[in-house]
């Protein structure tokens, strides 16, 4: 037992991506290089591309954009027909409400992304790689452009990188304000200069992606994580964390907490520790109580305080893929993108859910009718309940609509729009009913905490 405790202490708080965040000037090449930057490229260029893919597989790294798909496996699916270019595209279209971790990495440590992308480009055989960044991050585009220029001037990009014979160019491509372009096939459409309408899969991008060529699309944090995996080796990387949640994860914490910001965690800490410890969120302002939380970006199910801190089995819930989803949608949620949104006792679940429904209505590309029409209906019904003009049957209607969207669309935006509404009704139905039954009062008062933090009865 002691050794397990010991191991936890040794690696607790281990930082891999943000280790150097406090070093002055780390944004710039000279400082970044002095601090050990680009070592992974030196190491990788001496390896066989396939061995790098194997290394990433062994590390257990899972996509950090939200889906959590094993990165090495995704890379191994890439088709390699003769004479056809292959592409690596970085998904920097961060726009899942609650998520702002990629922005932090790109703004303050841009070279870690460039470095990870060079290694990945070499492993995948991509001679031209793109960073698709959300249009609103205009100033970060300049920071990345500058980092690319610096990398190129120092021989890490361009022709015959470090004498290896490998060529790679890298470009930043700015989107223009569409959440849907975070979906990888919509992103590729957008990169081709079209509307961001997701494509029907298959074919998957690994077979037919950018301009019909084999393509891998990876999130910013995923590609940055390749750097420590190569530097330290897959085995060392996989020792951090627990189970299938290896390595570290960036969490962007926001909402009603004392210290909103970006935290790198090793996925062994509890949700409770994450919210209340001074090392992380620092608790809830003004001594208020925790009411609810969306632990992984707006699309994942919201949980009331009691189910957030403890699973339905009565175990402490941890900040990792397995524990956050323990209990399925009935009593669990998901790690998602790591967008951690905290709601205090004075927040209104109906209003919050309404803003999310409005978001998804605004961001639906309009291609599939269940999503295009359904998101609009959900927004309208939620607004009417919020304004005290709803009927009890509206709650069932909402449930019915979200069921009809889920699973019936080309891309996962439909599911992403349905899940928050479903979870809000599943766990906070009495708050919705209270709005309907108290049409005047709900305009001036909130339902409050009620029983949402009460201990859960655990069946023996």
């Amino acid at each position, binding site marked *: 037992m002691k050794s397990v405790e010991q191991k936890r202490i040794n690696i607790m708080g281990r930082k891999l991506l943000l280790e150097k965040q406090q070093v002055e000037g780390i944004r710039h090449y000279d400082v970044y290089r002095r601090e050990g930057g680009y070592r992974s490229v030196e190491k990788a260029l001496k390896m066989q591309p396939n061995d790098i893919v194997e290394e990433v597989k062994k590390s257990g790294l899972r996509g950090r954009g939200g889906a959590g798909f094993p990165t090495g496996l995704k890379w191994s699916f890439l088709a390699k027909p003769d004479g056809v270019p292959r592409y690596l595209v970085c998904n920097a279209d961060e726009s899942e409400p609650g998520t702002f971790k990629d922005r932090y990495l790109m703004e303050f440590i841009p070279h870690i992304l460039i470095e990870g992308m060079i290694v990945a480009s070499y492993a995948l055989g991509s001679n031209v790689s793109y960073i698709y960044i959300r249009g609103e991050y205009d100033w970060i585009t300049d920071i990345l452009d500058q980092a690319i220029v610096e990398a190129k001037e120092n021989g890490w990009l361009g022709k015959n990188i470090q004498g290896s014979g490998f060529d790679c160019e890298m470009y930043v491509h700015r989107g*223009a304000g569409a959440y849907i372009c975070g979906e990888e096939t919509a992103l590729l459409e957008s990169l081709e200069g079209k509307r961001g309408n997701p494509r029907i899969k298959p074919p998957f991008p690994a077979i037919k992606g950018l301009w019909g060529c084999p393509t891998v699309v990876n999130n910013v944090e995923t590609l940055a994580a390749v750097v420590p995996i190569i530097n330290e080796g897959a085995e060392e990387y996989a020792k951090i964390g627990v189970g299938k949640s290896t390595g570290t994860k960036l969490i962007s914490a926001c*909402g009603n907490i004392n210290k*909103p910001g970006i935290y790198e965690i090793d996925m062994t800490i509890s949700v409770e520790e994450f919210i209340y410890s001074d090392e992380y969120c620092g608790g809830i302002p003004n001594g208020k109580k925790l009411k609810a939380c969306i632990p992984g970006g707006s699309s994942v199910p919201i949980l009331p305080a009691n189910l957030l801190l403890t699973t339905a089995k009565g175990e402490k819930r941890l900040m990792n893929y397995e524990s956050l989803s323990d209990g399925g949608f009935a009593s669990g949620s998901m790690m998602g993108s790591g967008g951690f949104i905290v709601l205090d006792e004075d927040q209104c679940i109906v209003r919050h859910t309404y803003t999310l429904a409005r978001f998804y209505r605004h961001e639906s590309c309009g291609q599939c009718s269940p999503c295009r029409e359904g998101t609009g209906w959900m927004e309208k019904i939620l607004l009417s309940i919020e304004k005290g003009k709803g009927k009890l049957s509206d709650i069932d209607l909402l449930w019915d609509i979200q069921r009809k969207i889920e699973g019936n669309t080309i891309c996962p935006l439909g599911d992403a729009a349905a899940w928050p509404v479903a979870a809000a009704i599943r766990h906070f139905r009495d708050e919705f009913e209270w709005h309907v039954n108290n049409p005047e009062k709900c305009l001036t008062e909130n339902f409050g905490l009620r029983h949402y933090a009460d201990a859960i009865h655990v069946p023996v």
Partner: protein
Amino acid sequence: MIQFKETSLAKVKDIMARYPSDKQKSALLPVLHLAQVEFDGWLDAPVMDYVAGLLNIEPIEVYEVASFYSMYNLKPVGKFVFEVCQTGPCMLNGSDDIIDYIKQKLSIGVGETTTDGLFTLKTVECLGACGYAPLMQFGKTYREHLTKQKVDTIIEECRAKAN
């Protein structure tokens, strides 16, 4: 006659060089961003036609893209555009109050421009900076942790710049 400045034309050339020679349409989004900055903050039909010509694509290919993405303005906007985020995490931190305050202070509604042509107020969905809420996009960057006092200061800055 609509025409980019020489420096912008050079940028267009640079952008086009990032994509394979038969895939120049890929340059559309970045070139539209350039066009919007250069031509008064919005994309009039003749501007979009001009961009179509530069990229050797049909005007409709530009219209359908410009109308899809929320960052392209298809009607004139004020000299300064406030794009206030209103999604969940910002709402939890008082974005509704900030939006109301700007409306009242500038006597305009959402989507409107002040009569002097200086300010436009827009509400937008998640800007990806939820930890710094409430916030707005203001030109190239964000203004974060907004308060009524900060809004006052920004408005004063703008007025001073306009004079």
